[in-house]
């Protein structure tokens, strides 16, 4: 049984193929910097609306997701390259063989990734509960320590300079009510 979808908790996102296609279009048009350049935000909004007129009020969320999608795709590309360069196939096979001796690792690896993948199918909630239950059953015997890993905070961009204050203009003179104005032409004396 598939549990209720978590769609309401998820950020608005296009299907994967559509995300890729849109980003490819930006690349082909040499417009990839639209994703990051603050001054090109309006151009990006326009491109999104042109690509998918049904996007309506979800543009802001979608822009964040597109940026995230692009970054993680780049990281994945680097990871694939690095993992092939750093560890020959036989090392991977040896590692997989060694992992078999450690059910905890299989559990963490497969359920971690699988659970994350199923998040998008609505099955995530079921697996999250299972992962918790399994981890709790493993924890007492493994005494998994809470080892803090040093975390280098993400550098924040410098604050943009405050724009100069526009001097306030003096109040406009009050225009007299035309009804109270003296007549331009004095009445003719009969």
């Amino acid at each position, binding site marked *: 049984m598939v549990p209720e979808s978590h769609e309401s908790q998820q950020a608005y*996102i296009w299907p994967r193929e559509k995300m890729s296609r849109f980003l490819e279009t930006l690349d082909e048009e040499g417009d990839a910097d639209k994703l990051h350049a603050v001054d090109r935000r309006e151009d990006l909004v326009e491109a999104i609306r042109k690509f998918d007129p049904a996007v309506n009020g979800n543009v802001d969320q979608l822009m964040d997701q597109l*940026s*995230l999608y692009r970054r993680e795709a780049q990281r994945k590309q680097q990871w694939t390259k690095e993992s092939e360069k750093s560890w020959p*196939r036989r090392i991977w096979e040896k590692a997989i063989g*060694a992992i078999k001796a*450690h059910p*905890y690792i299989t559990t963490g690896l*497969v359920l971690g990734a699988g659970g994350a*993948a199923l998040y998008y199918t609505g099955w995530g909630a079921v697996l999250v509960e299972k992962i918790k239950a399994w981890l709790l059953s493993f924890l007492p015997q*493994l005494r998994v320590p809470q080892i803090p890993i040093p975390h280098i905070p993400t550098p924040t961009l410098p604050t943009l300079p405050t724009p100069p204050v526009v001097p306030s203009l003096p109040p406009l003179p009050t225009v007299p009510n035309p009804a109270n104005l003296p007549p331009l032409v004095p009445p003719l004396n009969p």
Partner: protein
Amino acid sequence: MKPLYLTDDELKVFEALPPKLKEGWDVESEKGGVLETDEEIRMRAFQANFHRYPAFKPFLEELVQGAKPDAAALAKLPVEAVQELFFVIGARGVHTLIGGLMHEVKNDEDVSLLAFLTQVRRTMLSINTSTVSSH
């Protein structure tokens, strides 16, 4: 031989291992880096191509139905699928696996696996750090 990259706390656990297991290994300090956010992990899962690996789907479905994780099933997956699994759990996930494995090390093969996982974590942290969010 590539070294083990251990955090200060991990190093303490490693130092307590029998000398025979530590023999021949170089240990370098894991200085840390940028860990993945929840959103980044979810995006990796969103992008994952698990459907390309026929062995993966029934395995997950069995888990959802309540089956115990079967370590042998992992061996049925191609190397590319395992590389993808590692990418999805990220340095955060690998860090947790290392934390568990540290207390299970019993032979040279386990130390080799530990070294491998610390190298995977190092590589992932390095990739994350070189492509941090501009938000």
